[in-house]
């Protein structure tokens, strides 16, 4: 008797859960179009990836490439002129024991390349001087003349959110996680190294993004 009641309870719970899932799942699942994986788009991907690498080497010369993300954002429900936007992101971390000097050096590198932002890194430096911890600084976004977008995120070894700060899937202008084509996330060892070096006072996650393909709506 008890066994059959339990079985019934389990069955009912499963049915309700199934109904919940069925009722709330959108009928049109997000699926990347075939063109996004075609030869033409792949050639663009390689070209734009090389350009992103080149810029990253210039703005983070002493830091090796630590992560990359290539994917497409689904814009179909946006009613804009495009259905998909595919973006390549390459990232490295720049660290320093003197936060002001680290920010100024980064500012000079970006400024020399003609990149600009609002607010820029010197505004960030002012916020640091007001006593704000690096982990609470807002991301900055630089536009560069070669049509690259540079996103900088701030963290520090003691930041409990360090792992999510190096996650390229949650960058505001990145491709997101919905339709990833390829990815090289920051390794656990790299994250551990960032955490363990307590002499470091500021960590900047410097990410270069280049959009290489957009699928028009018509």
């Amino acid at each position: 008797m008890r066994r059959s009641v339990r079985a019934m309870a389990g069955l009912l719970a499963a049915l309700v859960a199934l109904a919940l899932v069925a009722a709330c799942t959108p009928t049109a699942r997000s699926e990347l179009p075939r063109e996004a994986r075609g030869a033409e788009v792949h050639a663009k991907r390689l070209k734009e990836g090389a350009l992103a690498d080149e810029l990253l080497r210039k703005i983070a010369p002493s830091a090796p490439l630590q992560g990359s993300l290539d994917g497409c954002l689904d814009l179909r429900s946006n009613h804009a002129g495009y259905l998909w936007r595919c973006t390549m992101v390459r990232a490295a971390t720049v660290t320093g024991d003197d936060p002001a000097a680290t920010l100024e050096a980064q500012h000079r590198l970006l400024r020399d390349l003609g990149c600009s932002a609002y607010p820029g890194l010197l505004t960030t430096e002012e916020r640091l001087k007001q006593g704000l911890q690096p982990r609470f600084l807002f991301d900055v976004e630089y536009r560069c003349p070669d049509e690259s977008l540079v996103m900088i995120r701030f963290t520090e070894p003691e930041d409990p959110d360090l792992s999510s700060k190096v996650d390229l899937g949650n960058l505001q202008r990145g491709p997101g996680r919905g339709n990833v084509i390829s990815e090289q996330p920051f390794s656990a060892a790299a994250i551990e190294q960032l955490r363990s070096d307590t002499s470091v006072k500021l960590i900047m996650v410097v990410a270069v993004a280049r959009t290489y393909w957009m699928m028009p709506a018509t």
Partner: protein
Amino acid sequence: MPRPGPRRALCRLGATALVLLSLLATSCSAPPVPLDPQRSDVVAERGPARIATAGALASMTRPYGAESSATIDSCAAGEDNWKVRDPWSYRCWFAYSGVAVVPDLTAATAMVTSGLIALDCEDPHQLAQQLSQWGELNPGEPLPTDPDFQPGVVPPQLDQCRGIEVWVRFSSATDPLLAVVAADAASTRDPLVVRANPFSDAQLQRLRARDDGVIVFVTVRMMYHQEPR
């Protein structure tokens, strides 16, 4: 430990089902009665909104004129849940967007300011003020007068103008976010889209081919219908 009796098991079963059903009900709340956007009274209200927004866009882009334009006509559903209950079930908006290509930032600022004054907007000088204080607001970055100033970094402007909302955003042919700005200017996630004519790929390609000037996106938006609940 004693095993629960059949009555207790039934109670648990009931409670589980109740929780799951209420979860189902709250997560997928029923949509309001659908609005027919082609209903005669809605159509009658749409016409004047189209004319008013087109006129406002012309004022905002004078004397250069809009090279490309886009329109979005859509309706948003009011909230109706245990926390919020809007007195309206739908609100419909007509948005007219245009792009003017202006020789430089000074001319672009003058165009926007005089347009906002002509439309009797609340804060027509906010853009000019922001640019005049740029050095203090954004230390170390290029000034608006510098040749390498990138118009795309100027934050978007929003003003209210006697029932019309005006949104302005600067960009340029080399702005990596040009397409994003165009989508911000003309796109919608509203559940009821009456008509969407966003900026096309061809229009954006033409803008990308421009090698000079400031690309100014202007969107004027007006609510033309409110459906009482």
